């Protein structure tokens, strides 16, 4: 007995069951095998074939022949459509940043004391966030017809979901003491939000708005594929005509714009926070 208290044996599993190396190893190996099994199973069902990939790369010559030389004729229309894409992103980001203010306050548990409203807002926003941007675009293009307006509404809903989550989390993390002090000295709800909450979240709010603008530029490229206007629409039409030279030009244009906008927005965000 004395031996057991002072000096446990090496294989004493009872002494520290969680730290037993054997168990830890068995657990990790089990997880590892589960991961590998899923990998094997899902590769089989999805038809992963590295032969295809290698074949594809040996055929790269032909594909490069298809994609290059890039078709510069499409550059003019691509530029016009690109401006449209940027406009769509600007409008959608603006409206979603305005609408998100009340929504995020309702979805923050330190501002909204009402359990039902808080959870209902959260639930709706969580559901919105699970819908892929393209599905939103498909629905709103179905409602509004092809053209930028369906895309704008889709981007608006899409970015509202993201912003509501980010900003309500920021609001929940603020210092509540100024607000309590203001309420104690007789400020009403609107006043305490305007002078207590807003100054605390303003830098993050601006930063998230820029972030959402960045996401919207990228998403508006994607939703254009289903006919919601912008450069994606042009990309899809060239793709369906198998006009690969033009497709490559448009892809390069998108690439350059995304890099530039990301760079500018990162610089502004660094300056703000």
């Amino acid at each position: 007995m004395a031996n057991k208290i002072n000096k446990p044996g090496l294989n004493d599993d009872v002494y520290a069951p969680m730290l037993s190396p054997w168990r830890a190893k068995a657990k990790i190996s089990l997880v590892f095998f589960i991961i590998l099994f899923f990998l094997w199973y899902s590769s089989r069902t999805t038809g992963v074939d590295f032969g295809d990939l290698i074949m594809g790369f040996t055929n790269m010559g032909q594909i490069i022949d298809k994609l290059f030389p890039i078709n510069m004729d499409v550059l003019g229309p691509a530029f016009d459509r690109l401006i449209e894409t940027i406009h769509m992103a600007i409008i959608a980001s603006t409206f979603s940043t305005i609408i998100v203010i009340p929504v995020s306050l309702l979805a923050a548990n330190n501002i909204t004391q009402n359990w039902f409203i808080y959870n209902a807002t959260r639930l709706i926003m969580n559901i919105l966030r699970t819908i892929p941007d393209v599905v939103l675009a498909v629905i709103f293009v179905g409602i509004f017809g092809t053209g930028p307006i369906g895309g704008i509404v889709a981007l608006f809903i899409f970015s509202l979901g993201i912003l509501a989550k980010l900003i309500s989390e920021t609001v929940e993390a603020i210092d509540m003491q100024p607000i309590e002090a203001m309420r104690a000295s007789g400020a009403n709800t609107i006043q305490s939000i305007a002078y207590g909450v807003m100054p605390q979240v303003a830098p993050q709010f601006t930063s998230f708005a820029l972030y959402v603008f960045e996401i919207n530029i990228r998403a508006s490229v994607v939703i254009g594929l289903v006919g919601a206007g912008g450069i994606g629409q042009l990309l899809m039409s060239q793709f369906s005509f198998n006009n690969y030279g033009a497709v490559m030009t448009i892809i390069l244009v998108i690439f350059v714009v995304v890099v530039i906008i990301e760079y500018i927005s990162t610089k502004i965000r660094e300056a703000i926070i």
Partner: protein
Amino acid sequence: MANEQPPKKHIPTEKKIKRVSIAAAVLVMYIWTFMSIDIDWKEAFNRFASNYNVVVPQLFSPNWARAGEVIEKMIETVFIAYVGSLAAAILAVPLGFLAAINMTNNRFLSTVGKWILSAVRAFPEIILAIMFVVVVGPNPFAGILAIAIGSTGMLGKLYAEVLESIDMNVVEAMQANGANKIQIMFHGIIPQVIPEFLSYAIYRFEIDVRASTILGYVGAGGIGTMIFFAYSNRNWSDMGMILLVIIVVVTLIDYGSTYIRKRIV
């Protein structure tokens, strides 16, 4: 004297000029946007009035007859996301090490690594999918490749940030004791970063499930193919079913992944 206001904060002139010019720039941007965007409001309103009753009620009455088929395709989508994310989680490790300045000790290499990663991140998944459909043909494998490459950009960046924030004292102590590079790697660096790496990889899997739902739209497998057909046939009750399945599966995966990530870190 009762109405006397508290003294106003003095703002320097340069700051005032800066603020006014930023406001003017934003204003010009908005005027430009709203003047030049080509929207026929009347037409859009008419379409809305006529289509609303066709689309929305059907979306909310999903076509249960096709539930089996939709769920099958959704499982394929999850598989695409799984294989893609796992491949990305592995591919991103060397790139993350390359981009982390404290691992390479070489400003040039680390900048090159960061540039590669941000270049990869600039391509939306669906555009990568278009490119891989051209390379390997229209099948789920193209989708896997698109997800794998697309996720590598973000994961590599996050990995590099994790690596840059590790405790270098451990590594220095090991170097001082004469450990070689491989020993430092396995006993000094990897134990510090494994939980975060795993957590980010699982988080990325969450995003990839969402991203891979749309890949089928360009022929890269998964539920996107059904979205394409439902949209082409304007079959909104099928679309409702697809939407319902996506919402349920994505929510379940989000909860599962949040649970696992909380246990890891």
